[in-house]
C-alpha cells in the first residue's frame, strides 16, 4: 500500500519538516492546527530537549508560519517542506 494512504486506502495529507538538516515526514490533518504536526515532528525526531514554544516553522521563503492556524488556512500543499528550528536567540543591542 502506498505510504500516503491509510489502512483503509484513504489518502493521507503529509508535511515534511526539515529539522536541523534532516527530513521528518508527518502525516497530519490539514484542518488541524499546525502546532499538532510540529509537536509530532519534534517527538518523532527526538527533539524533545526544548519546549515546543521555543520552536518556529518557516516556509521555503523564510516566512514565519503561525502554528495555531491549520495547513489548509496557511495554503500549504501536500508534501510542503517546512523548516522547523529553534527561534533565533540573540543578545546584541
Amino acid at each position, binding site marked *: 500500500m502506498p505510504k500516503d494512504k491509510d489502512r483503509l486506502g484513504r489518502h493521507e495529507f503529509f508535511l515534511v519538516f526539515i529539522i536541523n538538516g534532516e527530513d521528518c515526514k508527518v502525516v497530519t490533518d490539514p484542518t488541524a492546527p499546525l502546532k499538532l504536526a510540529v509537536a509530532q515532528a519534534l517527538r518523532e525526531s527526538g527533539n524533545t530537549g526544548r519546549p515546543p514554544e521555543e520552536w518556529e516553522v518557516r516556509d521555503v521563503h523564510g516566512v514565519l508560519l503561525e502554528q495555531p492556524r491549520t495547513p489548509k488556512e496557511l495554503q500549504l500543499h501536500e508534501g510542503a517542506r517546512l523548516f522547523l*528550528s529553534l527561534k533565533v536567540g540573540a543578545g546584541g543591542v
Partner: protein
Amino acid sequence: MTRVDPTVCRIKYEREIKRLSEHRAALETRGIFVVGPSEFPIVECVLVPRYPLRMAIPGPVPLNVVVPAGATAFQAAEIPSLAARAFKARFDLTDYDLRAPSLEFRDPWTDVLLTYATMLRAIEYEHQRQAHLVLLDDHPVTHKPFLCLRGVREYHEHPQHSGDSWLLYRAEMSLFAIIMSLWRVCIDLTRPTVIFQPTGLMVQWDAEAKA
C-alpha cells in the same frame, strides 16, 4: 589544546557536512554557498546579499507635505545593480559539539578577516524587542567582530551569556540551523541605504519588521 577526542569530533563534523550537502539546493536558493573542499575542523560558506542598495539624497519637499522647520527631506531610490558585499562565514568546529561552532567573517576573495568598519550589519527582529543589532565589534575574549547569536561559540562564551550554555541547545541545534539563523540576520532581514548628507556619506542598515 582540544577537549574532545578528535576522532569523535571528526565524526560529528562529517555528519554536519553531510547535512549541508543534502540541503545544498535549499541553501543555494537563499544565497548560501558552501565552499570547499571543507577540511576538518573548518566549514566555510559564502553568503550573498540579495536586496538592492537604496540611496537617499536630499531633495525638495513635495508641495503637499509639511515638514518641521530645519528638517531635510530625502528622496530614496533602489539601485538594482548594487547590493551589500558578499562575505565568507568561516566556522571552526574544534571541540564540536562540546563547544558551539566558532564563527569568523572573512573576505571571500582574500580570506582576510573583515574589520567591523568594512562589514555589513546583522540585525534580528522580534515583536517584543523590535530590531536590534547582533553583530558587535569587539568580543571581550577574541577582540574580533562577533555574532551575538545563540548557537555561535562567541555568544555562549561571552561573559554576559554564561547563563545560556551551549549545552542546553546542542542536541536541538545543528550547523545547518545555525547557518539558517546567520542567513536570517545578515541577508533576509537586513538592507543598506546610502544616505547623502551635507556632512558626507552614511550607510544606514535597516531590518525588515518580519518576525
